[in-house]
């Protein structure tokens, strides 16, 4: 058996392993009506038929047909059932990795109800089994596996950053006892970070620390495992996703925190809250919520007080797909913004119909598809422009990155902030 045959067999195994009826269902449901095309930003910004979501489903389904169905085995011409060869694998890589952010918008609007993102992730899993994962994305996963965080930040660097952030916090709240607690056992909350925060956006850590201070919260960060992201979710490598998820699970258990609070990261919150219990095949003994929901809770319970007149400029909200359409956190961020900003305007469309910023699905990590990614951003740029807002808030550091690039490319003249930053600005300390 040659090398490719071995890889192929591994990939085909993905299509024959059924945890339940979901895979079987979605591989047999698409009717090629093509009505999903206009729900996909890749198609909308290019008119390229290859980007129609149904085509991406077909890349996986046609291989399934060829190897797993009677019709595909004996009458392959009928459904264009396809051999899994190197050409097919390369086309799958280009379209399933390079032309999809897994935003789930096509699924929500599919005439049948095909979970297109789920099928595309199965296709990615096949490619990962074959070693076709884009090197740039795989290197992000490798960094997380090898160093404990996806940016390979050494612990000493993290501690240095947190030390000066703590000093800044003391100055800001005028309290020499204010702190950013590290590795404290039995705290009510273990707070996580997106490694982009200590690396590039430390002010969002300051903002959350100020919110915890104002709420008089019992909380801690861990220097051992704080990374909320799980890029193996994007590569669909189950073993690597398990490794990353297990570390955060173990750290929360070891520190005996009551709640694991997920930083503003769309895919990270999805990966740990919704996927990790299934990766690890167990229910978690602690509560897992997003910082977005926590901030809404603080406001509604009166644990923090805000003066929204401090944030005078018009604010709009970008809904991260994995948090909102795929994660069910729809209203809390709106509730927070209505309390933290003088004027909040919605994009059109928004909520579960919102368009992806273009940076999801691992796109920001895959530099080989940069041009395509920024082309899709035309839609988000136009959405933002139409709101007239001067500040774009988004509870996701991945989206923050992409929105800053959109601002730069399309000359929008907006500030991009996390939700914690705008809340921290509006906090009134006792």
């Amino acid at each position, binding site marked *: 058996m040659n090398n490719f045959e071995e890889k192929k067999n591994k990939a085909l195994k993905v299509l024959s392993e*059924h*945890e*339940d*009826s*979901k895979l*079987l*269902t*979605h591989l*047999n*449901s698409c*009717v*090629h*009506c*093509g*009505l*999903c095309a*206009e729900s996909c930003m890749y198609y909308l910004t290019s008119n390229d*038929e290859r980007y*129609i979501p*149904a*085509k991406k489903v*077909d890349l996986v389904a046609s291989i399934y047909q060829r190897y797993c169905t*009677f019709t595909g085995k004996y*009458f392959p*011409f*009928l*459904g*264009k059932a396809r051999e899994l060869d190197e050409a097919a694998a390369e086309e799958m890589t280009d379209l399933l990795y390079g032309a999809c952010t897994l935003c789930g918008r096509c*699924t*929500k*609007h*599919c*005439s*049948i*109800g*095909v*979970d297109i993102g789920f099928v595309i992730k199965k296709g990615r899993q096949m490619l990962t089994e074959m070693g076709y994962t884009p090197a740039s994305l795989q290197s992000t996963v490798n960094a997380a596996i090898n160093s404990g965080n996806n940016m390979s930040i050494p612990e000493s660097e993290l501690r240095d950053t947190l030390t000066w952030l703590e000093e800044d916090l003391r100055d800001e709240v005028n309290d020499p006892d204010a702190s950013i607690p590290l590795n404290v056992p039995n705290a009510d909350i273990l707070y996580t970070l997106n490694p982009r925060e200590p690396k590039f956006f430390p002010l969002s850590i300051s903002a959350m620390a100020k919110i915890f201070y104002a709420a008089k919260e019992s909380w801690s960060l861990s220097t051992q495992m704080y990374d909320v992201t799980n890029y193996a979710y994007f590569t669909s490598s189950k073993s690597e996703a398990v490794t990353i998820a297990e570390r955060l699970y173990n750290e929360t258990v070891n520190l005996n925190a009551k709640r694991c609070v997920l930083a503003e990261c769309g895919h990270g919150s999805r990966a740990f809250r*919704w996927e*990790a*219990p*299934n990766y*690890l095949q*167990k*229910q*978690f003994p602690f*509560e*897992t919520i997003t910082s977005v929901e926590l901030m809404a809770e603080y406001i509604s319970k009166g644990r923090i007080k805000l003066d929204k007149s401090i944030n005078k400029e018009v604010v709009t909200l970008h809904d991260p797909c994995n948090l909102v*359409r*795929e994660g*069910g956190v*729809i*209203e809390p961020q709106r509730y927070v913004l209505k309390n933290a900003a003088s004027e909040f305007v*919605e994009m*059109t*469309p*928004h*909520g*579960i*119909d*919102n368009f992806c910023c273009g940076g999801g699905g691992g796109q920001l990590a895959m530099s080989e598809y940069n041009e395509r990614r920024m082309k899709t951003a035309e839609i988000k740029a136009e959405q933002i422009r139409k709101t007239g807002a001067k500040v774009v808030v988004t509870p996701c550091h991945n989206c923050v990155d992409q929105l800053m690039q959109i601002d730069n490319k399309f000359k929008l003249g907006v500030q991009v902030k996390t939700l914690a930053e705008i809340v921290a600005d509006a906090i009134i300390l006792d």
Partner: protein
Amino acid sequence: MALYRIVSLIAFLICFASLAYHFLRLIRFGVPKDYSVKKGNTAAAIAYSYTGGMNPLKKESAYLHYPTYTAGILYHTGTFVSLVLFFLFLLNTGFSSSVQWALVCVLAVSAASGLGIFIKRTALNKLRYLSNPDDYVSNLLVTLFQLFTLIVLIDGAFAPYYYISASVLFLYLPLGKLKHSIYFFAARYHLGFFYGWRGIWPAGNEERTR
């Protein structure tokens, strides 16, 4: 009973058994087991998936494509009417003239819709690119079945052709995309379960966002 009627009945039974196999396989594979903490109401969301979630105002595949959506609804209506008539014909059920012509009108509209969908598939680059032979064959067989149902309502002399078209359709149905007659319902179930578990559906949680 004429031979062509017996053949069509056997074809139907083969079709039914094949679809039952697909259905039972879905049941055997089972429903998702999710270890995460459920946030919403899956039962309500699954019900919503089959009802409010199908509201054309909620889906771009409908509200951005009203002519196609309408044609699709009419076409499927004609298919269900034709299937019911198939059994009524086997039972030698007669119709009053007004019912007969009402059915003819329904089937004329639905078959025209089916033909329209076929023309669209052949005419648009986007759809031609997506399509495979099964898409065309399925569309044609169902449209022909509706047309022959219409014709046989008008003139019983065409019964042999009608039953042959029905037989071919029934034998082909489990082989290609027409088996979405089973998988459609499973897809809506899974969609409702997914959105319901995470508290995205039902409609109370879904803001009208356009």
